[in-house]
């Protein structure tokens, strides 16, 4: 089943913060976050593995709550370049408890940053 992202869309002014949530009904092995600009390929942002990991990349960070099967992406002090559609992709563990990269994507969150 597809993970559910919220909100569906966010409009920000430069410098404002945003949180995008991703929730799954299935046990998760990992959560991947991507940003896709119109007409372009999804760009990998970060991967979070089970274990309550929190990672950061410049002003973009994320958390993963394995027990709740949820992940959140935090964008702080947003820049114009952050505009795009953000997707979470989830991996569920196989019978051996691992995975290999097959993702089930959420429906996307459209982020628009204005000057």
């Amino acid at each position, binding site marked *: 089943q597809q993970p559910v992202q919220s909100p569906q869309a966010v409009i920000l002014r430069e410098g404002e913060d945003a949180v995008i949530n991703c929730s799954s009904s299935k046990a998760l092995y*990992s959560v*991947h976050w991507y940003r896709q600009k119109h007409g372009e390929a999804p760009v*990998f942002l970060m991967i979070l593995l089970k274990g309550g990991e929190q990672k950061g990349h410049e002003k973009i960070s994320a958390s993963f709550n394995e027990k709740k099967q949820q992940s959140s992406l935090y964008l702080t002090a947003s820049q114009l370049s952050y505009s795009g559609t953000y997707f979470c992709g989830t991996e569920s563990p196989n019978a051996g408890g691992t995975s290999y*990269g097959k*993702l089930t994507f959420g*429906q996307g969150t459209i982020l628009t940053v204005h000057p």
Partner: protein
Amino acid sequence: GEEVAQTPKHLVRGEGQKAKLYCAPIKGHSYVFWYQQVLKNEFKFLISFQNENVFDETGMPKERFSAKCLPNSPCSLEIQATKLEDSAVYFCASSQSPLRGRTEAFFGQGTRLTVV
């Protein structure tokens, strides 16, 4: 190469015609994935390969879709007798072997297929 290379970028086919898409994964990556992205942004998993072997084909409409990853050749996705509903962007992605649990996939630029 250092990036996933997909060709062609755009492809237009009349209903009933064949379409063939190509993907060269990042050198050293063992897994290749094909996803279909339709107009509402939804990604649909089609098929994955581990090297030249089909790993998971649960998303493939088997009647008309087929895919291969042969040694020393780009991977390919072929659609026989295209239908209007096949219009979409087809993305290929590749990932390394999942050492230490890292399975991040890197996407190609996609092939936009338009069936008219």
